[in-house]
């Protein structure tokens, strides 16, 4: 059963549009992530869904109830929508202890929910803190209390606004794992907002990518990663190597080799993207100073290039190589190699490119 349907929603702040024609749904038990950069309207969308911001255009259905509809003027207040919302700053009530915070939305008349709270408290280590006040808790504990508080009234849909942004990087991974297991255990349908693609990939059954108030892709994490709908989606996953070229004979020629295309027409201007992790380098054993002749370029995908810099970032190494580019400045290409791969600066490496990590889009002005 569908838990929430957002239909054709648009929203403006004054005359500035912040959300345009947003439509999507979240299914029973599904975790859906809204992924997008800061200021793309994600949080506003959550607030409209929760009823904290008045709907201006479109329709929202939660469960089977139309909770807000611009055309008919229906606008249920937030307290009657049956949504749970976890705020980015957690917004725990500072004057209430952990238990009272979690029970805030649970009426005394619902003993089963009270029992659920007791059970939840006993399962987590926050049990030891049931009587303590929010400011005495660590960030991770506060996050947990906020999550339990949102879950306690058994909401029809749970909304999470950047749930991990307040945590140290070191704690983030473990809290993320715990949060996901709580969500899956309770089976609650979840709509989560994040700007971190890794977080979205980890948490989501489905990712909705947003940019400048519009939805630009809706798909599983694998789909989003393997088949990005646009350069903007690609850009979310970090720096990417960009090359421009043209289609000729179903081929796109670049200084790094030729790539086949099926869906672009001959003569089209093309933007070609290669993920740094899609470039495999090998140290040229001879370390020769053989220069690459211009005519060689584009004929083979295995050539040797000069190393500009190489840095170890932990579990990967970041290597920048220079690609001769006709008479222009050489192209700087980034490659990410697993583990410790640090060729000498000025040394030479050969390049192998994983075609699955190469993406081509018809060049347009605004991507």
């Amino acid at each position: 059963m569908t838990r929430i349907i957002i239909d054709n929603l648009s929203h403006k702040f004054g005359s500035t549009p912040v959300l345009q024609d947003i439509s999507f749904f979240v299914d029973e038990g599904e975790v859906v992530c809204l992924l997008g950069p800061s200021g793309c309207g994600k949080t506003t969308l959550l607030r409209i869904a929760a009823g904290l911001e008045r709907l201006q255009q479109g329709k929202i259905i939660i469960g089977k109830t139309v909770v807000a509809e611009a055309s008919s003027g229906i606008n249920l207040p937030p307290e009657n929508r049956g949504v749970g919302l976890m705020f980015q700053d957690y917004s725990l009530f500072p004057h209430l202890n952990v238990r009272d915070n979690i029970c805030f939305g649970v009426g005394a008349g619902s003993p089963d929910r009270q029992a659920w709270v007791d059970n939840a408290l006993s399962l987590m280590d926050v049990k030891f803190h049931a009587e303590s006040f929010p400011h005495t808790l660590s960030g991770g504990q506060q996050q947990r209390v906020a999550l339990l508080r949102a879950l306690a009234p058994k909401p029809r849909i749970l909304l999470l606004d950047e749930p991990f942004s307040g945590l140290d990087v070191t704690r983030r991974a473990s809290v993320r794992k715990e949060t996901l297991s709580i969500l899956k255990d309770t089976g609650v349908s979840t709509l989560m907002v994040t700007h971190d693609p890794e977080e979205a990939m980890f948490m989501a059954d489905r990712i909705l990518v947003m940019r400048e108030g519009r939805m630009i892709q809706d798909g599983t994490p694998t789909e989003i990663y393997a088949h990005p709908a646009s350069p903007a989606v690609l850009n979310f996953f970090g720096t990417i190597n960009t090359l421009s070229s043209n289609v000729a004979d179903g081929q796109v020629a670049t200084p790094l080799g030729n790539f086949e295309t099926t869906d672009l027409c001959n003569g089209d201007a093309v933007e070609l993207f290669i993920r740094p992790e899609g470039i495999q380098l090998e140290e040229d054993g001879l370390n020769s100073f053989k220069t690459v002749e211009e005519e060689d370029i584009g004929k083979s995908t295995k050539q040797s290039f000069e190393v500009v810099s190489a840095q170890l970032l932990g579990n990967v190494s970041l290597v920048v190589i220079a690609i001769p580019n006709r008479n222009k400045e050489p192209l700087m290409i980034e490659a990410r190699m697993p583990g410790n791969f640090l060729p000498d600066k000025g040394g030479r490496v050969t390049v192998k490119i994983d075609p699955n990590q190469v993406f081509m889009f018809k060049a347009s002005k605004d991507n």
Partner: protein
Amino acid sequence: MVVGLFPNLTRHRQLHFNSWVVASLFLSLLFIGPIFAIFFAALGDSGGLWNHLFQTVLPRYVTNTILLMFGVAIFSLVFGVSSAWIVFRYSFIGRPLMQWLLLLPAAVPAYLIAYTYTDFLEYAGPVQKMLRLYFGWQSVQEYWFPEIRSMGGAMMIMGSVLYPYVYVMARAAFFLTPASLYEVGMLSQRNLFWTVGLPLARPAIAAGLALALMETISDFGTVEYFAIETLTLGIFNVWLGMNNLTAAAQISAFAFLFIIALLVLEKKARARRRFTDTTSKAVSLQPKVVSGVRAFVCFLACSIPIIIGLLIPIIVLLGFVFQGYSLGLNKAVLDAAINSLTLAISIALLVVASAVFLGFVARFQGNKALEKVSALASIGYAFPGTILAIGVVTAGGAIDSGIYKFFYNNFGITYDGWLTSGVLLIVLACVIRFQAIGFGAVTSGLERLSPNLMDANLVLGRGFAHGIRRVIFPLASLSLIAGGMLVFVDVMKELPMTLLLRPFNYETLPTYVYQFAKDELLEEAAFPALIIIATGVLPILFMNSVLNKITWGRSKA
């Protein structure tokens, strides 16, 4: 994702005219109305008096007002900023004591200190007596002694009780400036006060100074006693002395220029203060430990304003009591005390209640425009009591005659009119004048709360009223109590409005003391004067601890 901690929720909201909003607008109108009524009153015919005043006394009123403001500004800046810097920068014996003792002169109304100093320093007073005894002088011709009942005396005296406005603001600004900024100054071997502390605290100091100067314009007791003809005294004399309300309103309208200048100064300073008011968890600079001569200098510098503004007046008054004057708690004092307490408590409650209403509705039901209207409703603090009194009399009269007509025409009932004079009018005038204190307490209480708290309450299925009762109110209550106490203190020492608006034979402690001081019989009223000071001291101490919690509690959490 970088977002402001507390995004402005009301920014884009449209105003829905529900009953909360309408009631809030109505209440705001009630508070703003009397101020505009002054202009209506000024439009009347003063029988040529205005022209006469304009040509004769008005220039003197204006000159005196400006001179007095200038002098008070200097005294309160010197006292307030130097003491604030010393308690911030240096750790010396007695520093914790000084921190709050420095606040206490605010509990002494300027008119009381004027009365006591006059007694203290006059020819027959203890100081001159001692000098004569010591030097063997026989008569007034043999030596020169400064006259306290002068412009200079008024400047010093008022500065010594108004500097706490500057002190509080400056101290908070010094403490809230992150230590790292001072450390940069140290590393570059610059003078910390002139290069870091003062420039960053300047907006806060200006805001505090604006408040002190508003009090200066408002002052009636001191200038009357010292016979310094300022605008406020002029209004009072023209109204009561010449019995010409219209001319008094005309002078008031003229005094608007000063008020607007101060309001602009304060608003600008407040707006700029946001840059220095750091909400981050910055640590403030540790004070430098000093001992010996330097510690003594620190101690002495902090003591001077306390001695002038608090110690001497108390000693003088206590002296009278110990000499056996004003000992008995007679019926007149008791009645005045009861009147004062009743007024102060009920006005404090009314102010807090109306401020809570206006503040909460504007914040949670209104938008930016309604917030502005609600803030405007507390503009009364900038207006001298004498001017406000004219406003409420005019507005009250209009309301009364309206009600009278309504009842008489519709029901044939005659209504005596409650708002033309009397205690109700004092209450209205005080609520308008001190509304800003309550409103400030409410908004500062709300500003410290994440707006998400109310939203969290709503999303968790609880209604607006539940959120106010169970979340917002408990969290803002400390600020509200503090605000209520400040109003209480201000009403306890309020003089000019009570004097102008009170019914016949209705005395409060200040009017009681005023009557005696006017007849040069201060010693007879020493005891009630001490009560006024004492009732002011305790809430200020409480306020200080609350303010400390508010200012530093967050960074400790």
